[in-house]
């Protein structure tokens, strides 16, 4: 691989340094995982967006978002309004957020995802 590139490296006069174009050999070494394939399919078909909107709507209806905002408020009050970074806030509320999902919402979303998986695997 290097031999192919040394000449262009020395003599290139382009102002932009282009990264070496991937060889076909590179691609074959790492296969995209099943997870990644399905993720791409979900995004391309628009299903991921629909699922996000559905989840957002359900969480809003059941008051989860308000609970989260209260958690944020408490955390920010404790730490001081201007001392909190976004990262800290996210790290602080994520575990509680994951735990406080109502079961019905989770079940509904899982059902839809599974339906999609079945249809995508075909």
């Amino acid at each position, binding site marked *: 691989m290097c031999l192919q590139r040394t000449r262009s490296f020395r003599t290139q006069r382009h102002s932009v340094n282009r990264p070496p174009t991937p060889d076909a050999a590179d691609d074959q070494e790492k296969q995209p995982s099943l997870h990644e394939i399905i993720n791409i399919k979900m995004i391309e078909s628009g299903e991921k967006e629909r699922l996000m909107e559905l989840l957002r709507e359900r969480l809003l209806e059941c008051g989860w978002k308000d609970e989260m905002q209260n958690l944020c408020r408490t955390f920010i009050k404790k730490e001081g309004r*201007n001392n909190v970074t976004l990262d800290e806030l996210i790290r602080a509320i994520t575990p509680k957020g994951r735990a406080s999902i109502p079961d019905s919402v989770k079940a509904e979303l899982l059902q839809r995802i599974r339906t999609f998986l079945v249809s995508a695997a075909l």
Partner: protein
Amino acid sequence: MSMPNDDNASSQSQLASLFFEDLLDSIIVDVASEFHRISRLGLDRNLEDEEEELRLSAEARAKAADLSNSGEATSKYVVDIFGQTHPSVANEIFECMNCGRSIMAGRFAPHLEKCMGKGRKARLKATRSSTTAQNRYTRGSPGSAYTPYANSTSTNSTSTNRYSNGTYGIAGEGYSNGTFEEP
């Protein structure tokens, strides 16, 4: 796929859970970033109100701590958190907007009572004077939020040169709480 059904189902569920967690994390990040922005920009009323309460209570506590530390029995000269002392009666002098007299700030409220007719003597003074037209006008007008006696407008009208508390005045100079002048 040539996997038996059970394996398939469980790996599917695992995969589904993975995706669900993914979606959930994205939404949590959204909520957090939205709230972070609101709080940093100071747009959240709740946060601001609570901040102020905290500040006020901290100040009050500091004052109380100061008092107890200094051990003064009388609070004639109270030391505040900046170490400044204030006389117990505020002594700035300014002009009363109702009667035009120069009043000491600490005595302003009692002065206003007599001046504007909250007190007994002023009310007696008022009922004796003023025309019936003025009475009719003040009785029908809406009271402002500041005065507790806006409802008893009939007894509150003073002489023709002055306004009643917070009701719409008829004529005269000066101004009282939020009323407008008629030409």
